[in-house]
């Protein structure tokens, strides 16, 4: 997946398998990978510029989605209506 540039301090500018790498990075970001995923992440971000950019952009998008998306308040009558209907079918 990556050329071995470890130790050179430079990141390669092209990722050899963008889809596979990006999906793995997203899965790590979403907390769906195993315990060793942080090591894999560290290594990928250190070696590959597209992976580095993708991860940080996805992280930022995830954060703004979570914090900024409009939330709608539950209409006041809804809970009462549900309870009333439940009583009717009991």
């Amino acid at each position, binding site marked *: 997946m990556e050329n071995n540039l470890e130790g050179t301090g430079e990141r390669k500018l092209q990722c050899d398998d963008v889809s596979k790498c990006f999906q793995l990075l*997203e899965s790590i970001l979403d907390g769906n990978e195993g315990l060793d995923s942080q090591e894999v992440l560290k290594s990928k971000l250190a070696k590959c510029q597209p992976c580095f950019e*993708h991860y940080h952009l996805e992280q930022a998008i995830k954060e703004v989605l979570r914090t900024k998306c409009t939330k709608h308040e539950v209409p006041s009558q809804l809970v009462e209506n549900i309870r009333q209907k439940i009583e009717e079918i009991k």
Partner: protein
Amino acid sequence: MSEVQRKKYSDQEKNRIFDEEFMPHIDSMYNFGYRLTFDEDDAKDLVQDTYLKAYRFINSFEQGTNAKAWLFRILKNSFINDYRKKSKQPAKVDYQEVETYYNSDDVDYGITSDLRVDSLKDMLGDEISNALNSLAVDFRTVIILCDLEGFTYEEMAKILDIPIGTVRSRLHRARNLLKEKLRSYAQNMGYKTDEEE
């Protein structure tokens, strides 16, 4: 409701499960319903139907399992089976076409390289919400479930009745589409999109 009936709960147990395990999720349920339908009344109907079904089929719910995921699955099925059928608008998603196009590596990298993290942080909540809302419902749904509601891929697979591999790839494609929308917003609003810092 495909789960095998495990045991019959007493009325007292039913009421406890309903009050303590189902009702606390009404906020997330209503927002999910609203984000699927974009209509307050439809969202209310969907949530009400979901809770009535949840009560009716409460014996299919296994205590100790994820009640929120169970409820989301019922709501999503109600949306597909009831709401979409009732709605005069046909499903707008030409899913195959979109999915095939966005399975391209060029798209992956092209989008990543010209949307800036800084400009995202400057965007308003409405701009972020509008970008999400403009996605086709199947793509919108995976982002809502993952990023807004925090479900795991395994839970999403169960809610959507699709394999985990499809959850991963659909989410990846949904994110590419969202980035494209966000990039358009950024350009229109005059945020910088040209170079990464």
